[in-house]
């Protein structure tokens, strides 16, 4: 991407916002409330513009600074200025909005079947209610591996085979997994199956968030941390992974020093720099972290358009969501956008070959991003902080699990959660 393009897009987005309702005082205009950074995404501005041009309806786009968004949205919701449509991720913060009272469910919406399974799963609550229309870019997180370095291996079908493969790679002098200690997100992929897989996952999640249990009460969490500790000890993460960070991933993979890493597909298009190996040399397999026997993928986090149940213009809002969910419209909005498909009929977006090739596996083993979005007080950094202490030999596995939980609770309390 040319360096001036983001600026141009931002300017264009700002102009579009201004033109499509930012200054509109039309009382009939549909009010959409969202974070400033979310509303300036090109596909968002595109759909807003496209809607107004196509229908002649007016939209009032109301953006709030990111840091103030949660509180401001909560405040507005109880006032006459409440938005007709609210943009929000399906994460722990959403619990504060009393979704049942304030927003419509879309279980029977005509566009519900248009969503991919993973997208629909993401937008569905524990009771199976579809909370809104996911209109966002997505990616697939998993284990991306160098096909040339893994020549001779097939896709491991079990944790045991994955471990055996790592051992064989190490015998060959190849670092199996590049896991920089500075990159905190990786462990969350292993936690998804623990809290997402029915029937026990959601129940476990609820108990955890209700402070009825702790991480240490969940054996899978301990299993995962044990596996991570052993992998680090055996050298599967490399010798100097404690000193590495985000910037080291691309060189490690491109040079062939490491064979695999846990990341997402769009990273290859934004941060990966070709070296001895190019992005075409990589493929996708599930992440094995001793919490899912067949491995796991993590689906993308999606921003949902949720309709205010109490809005006088909720019918127009429903129409707007239907407009957005129509293939002829979302394909306009996502034209040329790098993203995993959220809608089944999505054709104009750019999907990586890695994801396409692993489609059947993804369909089987993809899980909604659960840990980072639904565990109250979850912080990837805090979790990594505990794991790094473990890597350095300062604490045991059990102590690490305990510290993860302490960190989580501390963060939750700091954020004002009643926990």
């Amino acid at each position, binding site marked *: 991407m040319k360096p001036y393009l983001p600026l141009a897009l931002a300017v264009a987005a700002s102009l579009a916002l201004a033109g499509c309702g930012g200054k509109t005082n039309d009382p009939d205009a549909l009010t959409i409330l969202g974070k400033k950074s979310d509303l300036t995404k090109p596909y968002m501005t595109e759909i807003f513009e496209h809607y107004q041009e196509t229908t002649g309806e007016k939209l009032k786009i109301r953006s709030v600074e990111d840091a103030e968004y949660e509180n401001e949205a909560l405040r507005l919701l109880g006032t006459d200025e409440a938005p007709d449509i609210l943009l929000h991720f399906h994460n722990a913060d959403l619990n504060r909005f009393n979704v049942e009272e304030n927003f419509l469910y879309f279980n029977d919406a005509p566009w519900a079947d248009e969503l991919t399974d993973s997208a629909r799963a993401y937008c569905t609550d524990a009771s199976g209610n579809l909370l809104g229309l996911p209109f966002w870019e997505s990616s697939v997180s998993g284990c991306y591996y160098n096909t040339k370095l893994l*020549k001779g291996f097939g896709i491991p079908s079990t944790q*045991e*085979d994955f471990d055996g493969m790592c051992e064989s790679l190490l015998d060959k002098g190849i670092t199996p997994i590049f896991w920089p200690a500075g990159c905190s997100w990786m462990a969350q992929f292993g936690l998804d199956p623990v809290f997402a897989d029915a029937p026990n996952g959601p129940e476990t999640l609820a108990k955890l968030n209700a402070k009825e249990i702790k991480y240490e009460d969940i054996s899978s969490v301990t299993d995962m941390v044990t596996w991570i500790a052993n992998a680090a000890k055996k050298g599967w993460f490399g010798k100097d992974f404690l000193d590495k960070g985000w910037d080291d991933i691309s060189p490690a993979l491109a040079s062939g020093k490491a064979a695999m890493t846990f990341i997402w597909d769009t990273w290859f298009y934004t941060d990966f720099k070709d070296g001895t190996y190019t992005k075409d040399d990589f493929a996708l397999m599930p992440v094995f972290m001793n919490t899912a026997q067949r491995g796991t993928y993590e689906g993308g986090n999606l921003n949902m358009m949720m309709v205010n149940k109490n809005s006088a213009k909720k019918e127009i809002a429903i129409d707007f969501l239907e407009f957005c969910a129509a293939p002829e419209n979302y394909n306009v909005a996502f034209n040329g956008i790098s993203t995993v498909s959220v809608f089944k009929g999505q054709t104009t977006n750019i999907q990586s070959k890695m994801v396409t090739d692993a489609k059947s596996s993804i369909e089987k083993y993809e899980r909604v991003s659960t840990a980072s979005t639904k565990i109250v007080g979850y912080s990837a950094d805090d979790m990594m902080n505990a794991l790094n202490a473990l890597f350095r030999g300062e604490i045991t596995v059990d102590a690490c699990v305990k510290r993860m939980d302490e960190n989580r609770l501390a963060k939750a309390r700091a954020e004002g959660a009643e926990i």
Partner: protein
Amino acid sequence: MSKWSKMPKWLKYTIWPAVACIVVAAVIMFMVGYFGFISEQSDTDAERNLKETYTQVSNSFGKLMRRNWSILESCRDYIELSDNYDSVTPQKVTPKEFIESKKEYWGFTDLYFLDAERNYYSFTEDKQGDKPLENGSQTLIDANKPIMAGETIGSLKVTMFAVAAKGEYNGFAYTAIGISYTNTDMAKALNADAFGGTARSFILRADGNVLLSAQRGGGAMDNYFDYLSGMLDDETIDGIRADLTALCADCEELAPAADAYGYLPYTFRGEQRCIIYMPIGYEDYALLSDVPFTAVSHGFLLAQRATMRVLLIIFSVVIAAVIAVLIVYIVTQSKHNRKELQYRERMFDVLSNNVNDIFLMLDPQTQKVEYISPNIERLLGIKLKDARANIRTMASCAVDCNIIVPNEELQAIPIGSSRDWECEYMHQATGERRWYRVAIYHMSIQGMEKYVIVMSDRTLDKRLNKQLQEAFDAAQSANEAKSNFLSNMSHDIRTPMNAIVGFSVLLERNAGDEELVREYTRKIMASSHHLLSLINDVLDMSKIESGKTSLNVEPFSLPDLLEEIKIIILPQAKAKEQDFSIRTQGVPPDELMGDRLRLNQILINLLSNAVKYTQLGGKIEFIVQKIEESGQFCKLRFLVKDNGIGMSEDYVKEIFLPFSREKNSVVNKIQGTGLGMAITKNLVDLMGGIIEVESAPGKGSTFTVELSFTHVQEGAEDAWFRQHITRMLVADDEEDICLNIREVMRGTGIDVSYVTDGAAAVETAVKAHEHKSDFHVILLDWKMPGLDGVETARRIREKVGKDVPILVLTSYDWSDIEQEAREAGINAFMPKPFFTSTFFQTIRPLFAEAPQMKAEEPPAEGALNGRLFLVAEDNELNAEILQEMLAIEGARCELATNGKIAVDMFSNAAPGYYDMILMDVQMPVMNGYEATRAIRASSHPEAQTIPIVAMTANTFAEDVKNALDAGMDAHLAKPIDMDAVRTTVARILEKREKGETN
């Protein structure tokens, strides 16, 4: 003598290390050979071990295949029969129950019903699979024989055994049935635990595709040859593949030959491994195992290690023994070498500290000092560490040369050559100077280039040479001086002698001509005087140079000295019509402590020369300046300036050398010994002063003499007040003189007014008179432009009257104007320069008595008339001359031929009989000093008062002092100058008459 002691030294030193090396080499060779043998045996053992192990595994796997097919065949029969369960046989279990019981018993994972289209129906899942199988079924159908194949069911890899069957199960028409095992299940069959679980064992096809892996977690392995890529080169992998293909092709079904196997040892990342492969007798399937060598030959390796350990111990002991011997040898040698080195270093240090040669060694590249002898600190005052740190510190003591030779010059010295030069160095602390011959040798020491610098002390040689040179120069100079002296003396003595002799001859011939006699006698006398002065100077010079001259320090009056000088010089200057003036500046003290005679001699010499070398009508200034005063000490500067002929620059440089005279036509005509200035210079040096001269031809000369004196504390000046003198008027056309008088009079209580011409003096005096405040004294310069001193005095007298004393201040002889001055009303004359003491002495009588002209000193003429002298003189001729001369003066004398007689004659004489005794010094029996002492010590009434005057050829200051010390009253030098005799006698007698004594 033993053979050992006869052995050459180099051989003694090398034999033991050589023996040790040979022993070590032999042991190493033995061990290399041994370990090579062991390794070979180990390899053979490993291959045999592997072959035996995996032949058994292969056989076991063959049995497993057959067993599974057998199971399937039994199942097939039962399942086929089960189709007619109700109508054919009364079985108690259903097929489903049968299969489930077998599954549990035999441990397979699942049972599948297969059709010709590779579709399958899972017994466990009880449904048809999503997609057809990839392998196996077609082969089965085509060959109608039992098969084994790897399949992927869902995402799970399994090994499937199948046999042909025919029937329908839950509506699925099948042509074969198969059972599957997971990789984990099958691993047991491959003896996964063999070799400590370190082996990677596979059932694979000849192309490397893995059917199953014995390794835990090996399920992900697809193709082992692909995995080996990067660990083995492609050629080796292709070789294994080809070999395996051939072995499988030659293998009878399920009956592999015992020697049908391949073996390949290899090393990867430092680990020795070995691969063994063998067909299993089914299609191109083979058993392949990749095992760490250490695991295969563990026992052998243990034995090998034990052997190695023993050998190592033996070898270590041997090596230790050898090393011990070597250490003892080296230590002994080292001690010996160290002692030798210490001895040499000590010896070198001792030598270095006791010799004055300095040694250095430098690195050619860095010029870093690698060695420097410690005596550098003693010899040059440079700290050893400083010199070591930076060789350039030595440059600081070099005088007009440099030890630091530029690099390019150093590098230009070929190896084996040297460069040397001489250089003078100065000790940094003491300043002592030393000469060194610095030699730089560029040499190779044990293959390393070095600069060795040897600084050989040449100081003694240099000093000796210098002394020799100085002695030579001195001798040469003395010789030249002697030659010059003789030459000069010869010339200078012969010249007046020639005149004396010549005119004496002429006198004899013309004795009758009174005028010629007078003329010749005058010339003879002039030549005699010149000869006398020459002799005096030569003797003076000789005395000074011999170091026998000493100073006679006593109080003297500076005004008196200057007056005496003026008396001597003024007539000479007047004779040449020169303007001679004496001035003082800065108020010099009146009374000083010093050698009056020597100072007089210095100044007379300078002033006589000034008169001599200044033309008629020229100008001569004599200035006395006080330039410094501190407590009782003061420094005076005497300036003698003239506008005479001057001197050339070259001559000025040697003016103070003996017998030096400028060679020009003017000077050549002026008589002189050429010793005067040399004597003057020596006297000034003797008095601790300095003398300088500035001169240029035709522009005159200025001699400057600076001398220090102790000045005698002067008495209180309240005498002025007692005389009621509080105001005075000074008139002089030179304002400096007026100011000087005012300065001199400061502190006396007298208010000095001055004017610079006569008319102003008259006007000022008249005004004061009119205001009834007359000046108490008026001091007038004689020679002023306009009204001169006499005329001014006359006019003042006309207006003011005769009560105010008027004095004339002059450098000139006032005898010519004395009469006129008296008539004009001048009371007294005062010589320049102005001194308070002189002024007071002059003015006091004027206030004590009525103002009147002070009487002049009685002329010396007639002072001898009628006197009777006792003359002690042993030389008859001298005695006769004196007697005649005294007779001419109207005096008489009685002669004594030695001191003793003189004493007796005096003792026997009545008091008042003799007026004076003229005493020669060098006399037989009793010399003049002894005689004087005897007279002074005698009981004669006039023993203490009778004037005794030395009359001797001993004319040095010491002689004068000795004479006075002996009790004499004065000293007169021979040859006798009757003027001097007259003056001296007159002075002494006057004093005697006044009752004063010495």
